[in-house]
C-alpha cells in the first residue's frame, strides 16, 4: 500500500486519514504488532513528523511506545544465527580444499562438491531461518546471514574453483580487453560492441587500476552482483508486501529460484541492477495510486453486490482524477527523478533487451497511474530510441534480422529449451529441472497474484511480470532470450509467490517448518542446476595461462581458434585473432573438425579439458575424442604442438595458410 501513505489533498484528507495512519505505523519495526491479520506494506519514505503543521519544531516528541515483549531474548536467538553464519564461512576453505574438480561429469558441481560445501550451505540456510524465527529479527544480522547464504550458494563455484567458470564471462573479459587502452570498440567483430557501455566501464576501471586482466573480478562477480539483486528484491518487497519478515523471504526465494545464471560478468547483469533500481523507485518512493471517486475502482468488480457503474464513467473518472502525490520533500523527489533518469539512460548503451523490459514495466505503471514522474517513460523511450537510431546505425543497417526475426519463428523457444535437452543422464535431469523451476515459479506466483488481488484488489504486479514476455517476439535473438524473459519477471514473481506462502503459513503457523524444509531442498537443487554444466564450464588456471601464452606467441592477425567454443579462448585477441572466415557448419570446429580446419586454416588451435568433457557429457563422444583429433592433426604434418598436458594443448600450424 505504498500509495496510501500520500498527501491526498484537502478534499480527501478525512477519507484517507485512517489508511494513512495504518500505513505510517508500518514505518517502525515492531514484531509484536500483529493486530491486523495482514502486514501493512511499508514505503521507502521518512517517518512522518509527529509535529502538527505550524507547531514549533522544538516541541518534545512523544515517547515511542515500548514493545509489549521487551524482555531479553534467549541466547539461542541472540547467538544462534551469528554462530551458524561463522561456521558456514569457516566451512568454505575446507570445501575448496576437499572438492575434486577433476571428477566433474554430467551432474556437474553437485556430484563432486565436498561434504564441507554442503554443510556450509545448510549452515547458511539455518543462520537465515533462525534469525527470521527470532521474536525480534535484527536487520543487520539478516543482512549478514543473507550475504553468507549468497556466498555459500551463488559464490560456491567461485570458492571451490580457482578461476571464473563460464566461457561467455571470459569472452566478455576479452571484449573489455579489446577496449582497454584505446577505448575504441573494434568494428565488424561482434554485435555486442554496439552496446559497449559495460565493456567501456570495466576497461576504464582496469586502466585506472593499472592491471592487465580482470580474472579476480570475473571470478567473484556472480556472488557480488546477485547480492545487489537481492537488495533490489528486498526493497521491492518492502514496498509491495510490507511486514518485517516477508521482504527477507522474498529475497531468499528470489535467490532460490534464480537458476538462470545470467549473473556472470556481463552487461545484462549490470542492466538488471539498473532495472531493479528504477523499479524500486517507481514502486517505492514514487508510488501513487489513483483514487476512484466513483467508488468502484477498476475491473473486475471488486466487491460482490456492489453496483456496477458504466464503464465509460469509471474510465472518465479514473482519467480525470489526479494521482496522489508522494510525501517526499521536493528535493528528494527531484534527486530520485534524476537518479532514475540516469539509470534509464545508462541502460540504453549497456544492453539490448533490458531497456525494453523496464520501459514496458514503467508503461504499465504509468497507464494505471501508479507512479509519479511519468516523464521518465518518455525520457527512457527517447534515450533508447535515439541511441539505437544514431549510435546503432551500423547494427540495424546490417543485422535487421535480429529485430524482425528473419523468419525464424519459434527460434528462441527451440534454442532455449529443446536444442539444449541433450547430453548424458545428468545433463538431461539438470535440464529438466531447469524447465521445472520456471513452471513452479509461475504457479506459485499465480496463486500469489490471487492472494494479492483478494487483499489489495490489484492486478498490476502480475502485469509487471507478464510484460517482459512480450520480448519473446524477438525470436531471432537466440536461446538466451528465454532465460532473460524469465529473469526480468522473476523479482515480481517471487514477491507474489511470497504473498502466497504468507497466506499459506497464516492458516497454520506450524507450516513455517515446512517452508524451512522447503528452503533446505531448494538451495541444494539450485546448486545442482547452476552447476550442471560445470564439467565443460570449469576453467582452470592452466587453461588461462596456456591461452595467454598462445596469444602472446601468435603472429599479429593470426587466427586463433578453440576446437569447440568452451574454455577461456576469448580472454584476449578479440578483433585481432578471431576474425574467422565464415564457413558453413563451422560455428565451432568440433562440428566437423578436419573439414573446418582445412577450410578455416587457423594458425593456432586451442584444446582444453573442458572441450573433451563437453564432447563426452553433452555430445555423446567417446572419451579421448579430442586427443585423437589432436594426434591426427600432428600426424598430418600440418600442425605441431607447442604445449601439451593431458587434454590441454596448443597446436600451431606448420604449413602457411593458403
Amino acid at each position, binding site marked *: 500500500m505504498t500509495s496510501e501513505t500520500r498527501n491526498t489533498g484537502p478534499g480527501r484528507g478525512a477519507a484517507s486519514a485512517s489508511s494513512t495512519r495504518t500505513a505510517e505505523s508500518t514505518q517502525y519495526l515492531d514484531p509484536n504488532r500483529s493486530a491486523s491479520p495482514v502486514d501493512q506494506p511499508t514505503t521507502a519514505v521518512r517517518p512522518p513528523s509527529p509535529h502538527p503543521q505550524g507547531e514549533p519544531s522544538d516541541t518534545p516528541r512523544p515517547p515511542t511506545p515500548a514493545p509489549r515483549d521487551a524482555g531479553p531474548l534467549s541466547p539461542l536467538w541472540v547467538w544462534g544465527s551469528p554462530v551458524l553464519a561463522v561456521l558456514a564461512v569457516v566451512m568454505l576453505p575446507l570445501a575448496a580444499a576437499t572438492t575434486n574438480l577433476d571428477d566433474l561429469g554430467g551432474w556437474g558441481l553437485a556430484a563432486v562438491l565436498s561434504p564441507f560445501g554442503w554443510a556450509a550451505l545448510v549452515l547458511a540456510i539455518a543462520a537465515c531461518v533462525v534469525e527470521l524465527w527470532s521474536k525480534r529479527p535484527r536487520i543487520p544480522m539478516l543482512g549478514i546471514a543473507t550475504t553468507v547464504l549468497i556466498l555459500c550458494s551463488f559464490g560456491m563455484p567461485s570458492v571451490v574453483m580457482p578461476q571464473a567458470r563460464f566461457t561467455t564471462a571470459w569472452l566478455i573479459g576479452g571484449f573489455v580487453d579489446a577496449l582497454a587502452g584505446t577505448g575504441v570498440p573494434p568494428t565488424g567483430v*561482434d554485435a555486442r560492441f554496439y552496446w559497449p557501455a559495460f565493456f567501456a566501464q570495466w576497461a576504464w576501471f582496469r586502466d585506472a587500476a593499472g592491471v592487465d586482466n580482470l580474472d579476480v573480478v570475473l571470478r567473484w562477480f556472480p556472488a557480488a552482483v546477485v547480492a545487489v539483486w537481492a537488495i533490489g528484491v528486498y526493497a521491492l518487497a518492502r514496498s509491495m508486501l510490507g511486514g518485517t519478515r516477508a521482504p527477507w523471504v522474498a529475497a531468499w526465494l528470489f535467490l532460490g529460484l534464480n537458476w538462470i545464471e545470467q549473473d556472470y560478468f556481463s552487461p545484462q547483469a549490470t542492466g538488471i541492477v539498473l532495472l531493479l533500481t528504477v523499479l524500486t523507485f517507481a514502486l517505492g518512493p514514487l508510488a501513487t495510486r489513483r483514487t476512484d471517486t466513483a467508488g468502484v475502482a477498476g475491473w473486475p468488480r471488486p466487491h460482490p453486490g456492489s453496483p456496477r457503474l458504466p464503464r465509460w464513467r469509471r474510465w472518465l473518472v479514473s482519467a480525470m482524477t489526479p494521482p496522489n*502525490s508522494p510525501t517526499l520533500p521536493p528535493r528528494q523527489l527531484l534527486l530520485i527523478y534524476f537518479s532514475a533518469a540516469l539509470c534509464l539512460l545508462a541502460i540504453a548503451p549497456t544492453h539490448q533487451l533490458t531497456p525494453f523490459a523496464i520501459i514496458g514495466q514503467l508503461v504499465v505503471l504509468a497507464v494505471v497511474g501508479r507512479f509519479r514522474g511519468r516523464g521518465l517513460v518518455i525520457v527512457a523511450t527517447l534515450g533508447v530510441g*535515439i541511441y539505437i*537510431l544514431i549510435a546503432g546505425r551500423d547494427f540495424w543497417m546490417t543485422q535487421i534480422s535480429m529485430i524482425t526475426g528473419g523468419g525464424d519463428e519459434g527460434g528462441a523457444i527451440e534454442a532455449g529449451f529443446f536444442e539444449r535437452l541433450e547430453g548424458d543422464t545428468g545433463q538431461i535431469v539438470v535440464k529438466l529441472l531447469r524447465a521445472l523451476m520456471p513452471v513452479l515459479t509461475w504457479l506459485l506466483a499465480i496463486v500469489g497474484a490471487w492472494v494479492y488481488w483478494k487483499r489489495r484488489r490489484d492486478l498490476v504486479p502480475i502485469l509487471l511480470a507478464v510484460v517482459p514476455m512480450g520480448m519473446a517476439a524477438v525470436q531471432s535473438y*537466440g536461446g*538466451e532470450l528465454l532465460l532473460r524473459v524469465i529473469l526480468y519477471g522473476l523479482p515480481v514473481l517471487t514477491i507474489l509467490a511470497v504473498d502466497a506462502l504468507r497466506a499459506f503459513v497464516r492458516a497454520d503457523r506450524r507450516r513455517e517448518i515446512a517452508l524451512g524444509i522447503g528452503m533446505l531442498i531448494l538451495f541444494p537443487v539450485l546448486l545442482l542446476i547452476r552447476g550442471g554444466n560445470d564439467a565443460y564450464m570449469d576453467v582452470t588456471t592452466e587453461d588461462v595461462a596456456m591461452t595467454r601464452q598462445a596469444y602472446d606467441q601468435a603472429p599479429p592477425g593470426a587466427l586463433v581458434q578453440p576446437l569447440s567454443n568452451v574454455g577461456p579462448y576469448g580472454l584476449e585477441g578479440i578483433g585481432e585473432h578471431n576474425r574467422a*572466415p565464415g564457413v558453413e557448419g563451422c560455428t565451432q570446429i568440433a562440428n566437423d573438425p578436419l573439414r573446418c580446419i582445412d577450410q578455416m586454416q587457423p594458425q593456432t588451435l586451442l584444446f582444453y579439458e573442458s572441450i573433451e568433457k563437453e564432447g563426452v557429457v553433452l555430445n555423446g563422444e567417446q572419451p579421448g575424442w579430442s586427443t585423437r583429433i589432436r594426434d591426427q592433426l600432428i600426424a598430418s604434418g600440418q600442425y605441431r604442438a607447442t604445449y601439451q598436458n593431458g587434454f590441454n594443448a596448443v597446436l600451431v600450424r606448420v604449413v602457411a595458410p593458403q
Partner: protein
Amino acid sequence: MIGGVLTWLVLALVLVLFGARAWVVETNRGRLTTAGATQRGLTWAVAASVALLVVMAMVNGGLTLTGLLINGEAETGTPSDSAPVVSQQAPAAPAAPAPAPAPAP
C-alpha cells in the same frame, strides 16, 4: 554525422527541459502561489522539443529504419549473441609461424 550530433544535442535539450519542468512542478507543489504560467510554458517547451527531436530522429535514420522494418530490405547478418564471434572482414594474412618453445606444463 552532423545530423547525428544535432540529434544528440536536441536530446540533451529535451532532458534539460524535462528537468526544469520537474523542478518547477515539484518545488511549487503545495504552495499557495503556484508557478502556473512557468509550468505551462515549460510544458509547451518540452512538447515542442520532443516534437523537434522526433523530426530530427526521423530525418537522421528514422525513415530508413522504418522502411527496413516494413519492407525487410536489408543486408542481414547472423545474430551474434548466440554465435559469439562473427567475422565480417577477410582475415588478415598471418605471417609464417615462428617456431616457439613449448611452455612449461
